[in-house]
């Protein structure tokens, strides 16, 4: 029983972390309808950026994540511009080719990371990594607690940004009715580009969390295709509060399976849940 309770507690912590790595996709795929299969590859790329700064300048991983955020924002603006000019603007056949485009980008990023850093696992050093708190029977690694707190804060900040600020509301408006926005004299493409920039920028912190929680390797993005898309689809496309709930469900499920059946079954959990959600309730928990 204690074992199960421990698994649930760790699952909730893990879940909030999953929310942080998925909120970007919730904006880019959920709100903007961009088939962003390369999101997890961008995430892993951000982790390697954090690793580089931590390794060379001994910068705290979270600060390093913050430091690369502006760069990622610009990268996001550029990526959306290319996607828009080549696919959305022309309209024709965007589905097939758009997906293939992002799939190709993901593969390119993966290989570039391998060429630069090799295939070995990389991790960061910080004072809070490696220690853990004891609560009677079970221990909670402090790195998990840090990731949990930062992830929760990141998700809440993004949710508030999208619902309270002018730009945030504009982003949700463009997701609801692009044509209406155009008629009111706003430029939907600029808003979408900005939103995609935000969605990529949050990967700075998310990437820092990814490498704080566990070492990263170049092909880690493949596992996170399942996790991030599972969270975003289960949440209901574009729902940020749903993202948090869905991520916690996934985290708890993974943690319980890990404890009960062993690590070899864990990679399939997110994909199985994703399939189940797609087959049974494609609009997600809080679908629009």
């Amino acid at each position, binding site marked *: 029983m204690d074992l199960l309770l421990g698994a649930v507690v760790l699952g909730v912590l893990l879940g909030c972390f999953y929310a942080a790595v998925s909120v970007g996709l919730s904006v880019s795929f959920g709100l903007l309808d961009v088939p962003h299969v390369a999101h997890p590859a961008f995430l892993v790329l951000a982790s390697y950026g954090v690793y580089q700064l931590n390794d060379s300048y001994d910068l705290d991983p979270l600060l390093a994540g913050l430091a690369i955020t502006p760069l990622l924002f610009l990268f996001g603006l550029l990526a959306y511009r290319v996607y828009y000019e080549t696919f959305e603007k022309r309209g024709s056949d965007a589905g097939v080719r758009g997906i293939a485009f992002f799939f*190709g980008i993901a593969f390119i990023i993966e290989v570039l990371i391998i*060429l630069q850093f090799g295939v070995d696992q990389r991790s960061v050093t910080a004072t809070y990594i490696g220690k853990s708190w004891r609560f009677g029977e079970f221990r909670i690694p402090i790195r998990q607690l840090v990731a949990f707190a930062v992830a929760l804060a990141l998700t809440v900040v993004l949710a508030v940004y999208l619902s309270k600020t002018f730009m945030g509301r504009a982003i949700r408006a463009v997701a609801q009715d692009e044509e209406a926005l155009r008629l009111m004299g706003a430029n939907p493409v600029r808003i979408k580009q900005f939103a995609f920039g935000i969605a990529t920028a949050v990967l700075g912190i998310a990437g820092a969390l990814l490498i704080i929680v566990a070492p990263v390797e170049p092909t880690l993005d493949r596992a996170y295709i399942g996790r991030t898309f599972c969270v975003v689809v289960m949440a209901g496309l574009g729902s940020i509060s749903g993202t948090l709930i869905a991520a916690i469900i996934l985290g708890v499920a993974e943690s319980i399976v890990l404890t009960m059946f062993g690590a070899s079954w864990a990679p399939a959990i997110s994909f199985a849940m994703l*399939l189940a959600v797609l087959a049974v309730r494609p609009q997600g928990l809080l679908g629009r």
Partner: protein
Amino acid sequence: MNKRSHSIAFWAGIAVFLVAVLSMTQIVRNEYPFFAGYVILQFIALAVAWTILGGYAGYVNFGTNAFFGVGVYTAVALFKATGAPLVVQIAAAAVVGMLLGFGVGLLTLRMRGIFFSIATIALAIIIETFVMNWRFVGGAAGIQLQRPPVMAPFDSYVKMLFFVQAVLVVIAVGIARYIQNSRMGRGLQALRDDELAAECTGVPTLKLKLVACMISGALMSAVGAPAAMYLQYADPSSAFNLTYSVSALAMSLIGGTAHWIGPVLGAILLGSTQQFLAVTISSEVNVLVLGIMLVLFVVGAPKGIIGLLRPRYRLRAGGKQ
């Protein structure tokens, strides 16, 4: 040229191809060309199989590796349990691949666009996880296989596999060509351009997609079956490697998906470039080249090589808005 003389030319070409392959296995002594050529033939067959669903119907399948891996492990399990000959292994793999295609189709073909693609990745990972936990075929560690003695008229097993793969290419191309020129091909093209309109005009979209998925799946698994004997070894992470998915997809899109010759050209071009790069530089660089070519073609030449060669196809497949 009318349709009939087209057909005669096509089958004459096929016959010449098979005779050339067969005489090559009898004349050339060095095994290396067959070793490299096998991989290229494998990719031609995979790319053509991918095009049946991904090109004709426009459903981007990321799960080529699932079907390929299932083919590999059907062959491994059958060989280990009964020592069945290669032909039986391939036939069994095709049947299992077809059943898997049926299951995948039922579960996922109602989904549109990106959801279908993500669902196929999900299936690949789930099946891979099951195989990793399947002790009989070696689990995550993989399994060594001893090749049975080679059959006449071949003097080495690799040469025989080369010929077998050439036959699979011919079967894949024959089926793709038949579908393309049939009622089914026109139905698939209609649903690819506008699924709702096709459904409204009486095209049985779900049935067509399901059949396309089954045929495509059966071919991919059949292509995977000889791979275990080729490598004399099988393990889940290489049998279910995502590189198979990106290769099949890239070769097909780079060649062009409106005609069966597209994936053949794409696979020959990319497959031989890859063989060359893997030998001269490294296998990482060859995946990089694959990715860059895919992105360049998708952005710059939406109809692939055949679109560049013959503007006619650009018109034919560019009607969707």
